[in-house]
């Protein structure tokens, strides 16, 4: 009797402990792999013998959330600065070191660690117990017998910004935007509209022209002021360094997503499950895999470099002055006349705003009930109405609410009209004269205050057909 009780007790305790132990063991976060990648055959995903597949390449270039990798091609501020050792003097267990900043590098104000890149201590991470950014003098601890020589290259606080960005992102952003920025965190399914999936490299609310990506400034703006009318809140009270770090990390995630997309694009036509199935009618699987192995080994490295260059170019350009939209004329003063002119343009056949936004701006134009076709697959969507590039239902804005997601300043509305809303069906009207755009802006800003919908009449003077001509505007 007693013995089986004792056994029960032991089993019970063992059971409890095992749950606790298995539940308590390390749990690492991981970047998700996109559905498109999963549509490739397994060999394309993982690789063939020595040649790495998509997943391996992603890991090589970007790492996993615990160990991020910095692909130097990418225009990301990893943080820290590269430096060379000038003087090294051991001081008991510590060492006094003087660093010289690398070419074009500036020392960070604060630093806590050093990654040794070349020399006897290569690969080590040493702690800085003191750091003087002005002179580059520091005291290193945790040497464990390692020595540095003059001329050794190091990275001071290397990756500090991106690491800090990751930590902040996981705390504040990942539950909606997902660990990989795929817009599919645990909370995402409950939100409407859904959180942004960065992996297309497309962001809606930008101040850059329609061909450019989002600038750092735009991302900071979204973080600071939120997106009104959605669950993207304002993080106004975060410190500037924190916001900057998050922006860098979001850009990093976006670049990773784009890299994945572009790489899969190269492989999908020949090596997706669908494609291989139809090929199997004529070819042997082993041959296809052999072909893939050759492709991966010989051509893909070049493809990867090419994608890297593309990313570099597009993301650097987004922050340049050339990309920014600057109206050629100041805003036309808001007046009855201007609003009427704006309404006229709104209703005009060339601009055709009413087709989507409705005749009175209520967001109920004919397009909102039509069955749109997916532009890539040519298959009609299940629900009527307009969709965005992420395949979510994304209906035109009801202009009566006075809620403008990308901001309510006149320049914000100007940018929405000029560049359109990237990723959505709001097209770019960059060929419209800027003065006309201002008229429309004035009209749109006045819509919430109309005595009744549609009360704004058209302009009293007949409109000059200037809207047809493509007026060259400065700053495009």
């Amino acid at each position, binding site marked *: 009797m007693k013995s089986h009780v004792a056994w029960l007790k032991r089993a019970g305790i063992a059971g409890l402990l095992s749950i606790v132990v298995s539940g308590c063991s390390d749990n690492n976060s991981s970047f998700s792999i996109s559905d498109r990648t999963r549509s490739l055959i397994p060999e394309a995903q993982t690789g063939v013998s020595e040649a790495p597949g998509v997943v391996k390449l992603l890991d090589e270039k970007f790492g996993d959330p615990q160990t991020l990798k910095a692909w130097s091609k990418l225009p990301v501020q990893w943080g820290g600065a590269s430096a060379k050792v000038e003087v090294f003097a051991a001081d008991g267990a510590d060492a006094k070191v003087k660093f010289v900043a690398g070419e074009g590098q500036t020392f960070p104000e604060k630093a806590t660690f050093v990654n040794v890149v070349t020399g006897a201590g290569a690969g080590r991470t040493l702690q800085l117990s003191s750091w003087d950014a002005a002179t580059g003098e520091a005291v290193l601890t945790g040497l464990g017998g390692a020595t540095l020589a003059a001329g050794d290259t190091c990275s001071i606080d290397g990756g500090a910004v991106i690491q800090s960005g990751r930590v902040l992102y996981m705390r504040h952003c990942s539950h909606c935007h997902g660990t990989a920025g795929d817009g599919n965190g645990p909370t995402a399914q409950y939100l409407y509209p859904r959180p942004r999936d960065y992996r297309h490299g497309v962001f809606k609310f930008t101040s850059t022209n329609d061909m450019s990506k989002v600038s750092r400034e735009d991302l900071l703006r979204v973080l600071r002021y939120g997106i009104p009318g959605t669950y993207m809140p*304002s993080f106004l009270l975060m410190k500037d360094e924190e916001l900057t770090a998050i922006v860098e990390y979001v850009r990093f995630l976006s670049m990773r997503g784009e890299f994945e997309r572009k790489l899969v694009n190269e492989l999908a036509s020949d090596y997706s499950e669908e494609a291989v199935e139809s090929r199997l009618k004529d070819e042997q699987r082993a041959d296809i895999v052999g072909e893939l192995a050759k492709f991966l080994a010989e051509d893909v490295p070049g493809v990867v470099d090419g994608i890297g260059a593309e990313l570099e170019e597009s993301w650097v350009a987004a922050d340049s002055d050339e990309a920014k939209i600057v109206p050629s004329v100041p805003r036309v003063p*808001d007046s009855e006349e201007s609003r009427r002119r704006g309404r006229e343009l709104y209703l005009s056949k060339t601009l055709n705003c009413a087709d989507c936004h409705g005749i009175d701006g209520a967001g109920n134009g004919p397009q909102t009930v039509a069955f749109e076709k997916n532009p890539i697959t040519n298959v009609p969507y299940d629900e009527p109405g307009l969709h965005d590039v992420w395949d979510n239902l994304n209906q035109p804005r009801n202009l009566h609410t006075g809620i403008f997601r990308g901001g309510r*300043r006149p320049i914000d509305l100007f940018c929405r009209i000029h560049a359109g809303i990237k990723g959505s069906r709001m097209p770019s009207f960059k060929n419209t004269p800027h003065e006309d755009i201002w008229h429309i802006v004035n009209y749109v800003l006045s819509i919430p205050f109309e005595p009744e919908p549609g009360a704004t009449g058209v302009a009293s003077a007949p409109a000059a057909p200037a809207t047809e001509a493509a007026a060259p505007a400065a700053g495009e």
Partner: protein
Amino acid sequence: MKKFWALFFWFWPLVALYVCLIAPGNNWWFPSKPLSTMGHQIDGLFYLILIIVTVTFVGTEFALGYALWMGATKEPGRRAWFSHGSHKLEVVWTIVPAFVLVFISLTQLDVLADIRVLARFPESVKEAPVAEVMARQFEWRIRYPKPGTELMTSPQPGDLYFVNEVHVPATVPTMINLRTQDVQHAFFVPRLRVKQDAVPGLIIPVWFEIEEAGEYELLCAELCGWGHYKMKARIIADSPEGVSAYLTRLEREQNEDGVQEAETASVK
């Protein structure tokens, strides 16, 4: 062993007292001294109750411990005290706490009226609120009236908007209109000791007088969903001139047209 238990029951109230004594020194106490006029009244009432409660706590816990001690040190064989109670004691320990409680109730009626009863709000405040604070999931959207006009319950052209930061004048009684766009929230400014639930469908006036210019944390204090904890905002109390200057700057920013050199378009 018995004495151990009696001492056990004497020991832990002492620990509790000790923790409370060292609490203010360790910053396990109010975030700061109260920085609004009503905050002083609230803290005063708190300390009054704290004193009464501490005396009661010490008295009753000591008595309990003593009763245990008596039991622990009883001569074996001695009978328990056969008593069904004492009418006199019952009367005493009914009347005395009753008086104390009535006293606390009466003391606070004034404070309560000052904070909540519209008729007792300072005259200057009843004229017009300085801003509408609209809580929503999961941020605070602020609407100021166009400088020089009064705040209306519905948005007007020229109204100024901001998010998560409210500028109000210090040392002047100030009122805001608290609303919510979706579910219940609560406007909680700990260092001013201000709290008011935002109820859907209602516009609730909340007044306060901030004594010192500075930044005050504003957070949500009514469960409003998964982002309840994220509603981090601030109240910036400044001189009336400072607030004016801020609103002027805000108006300018709100009318930005992206053309740096050009004059800001004015709204008619």
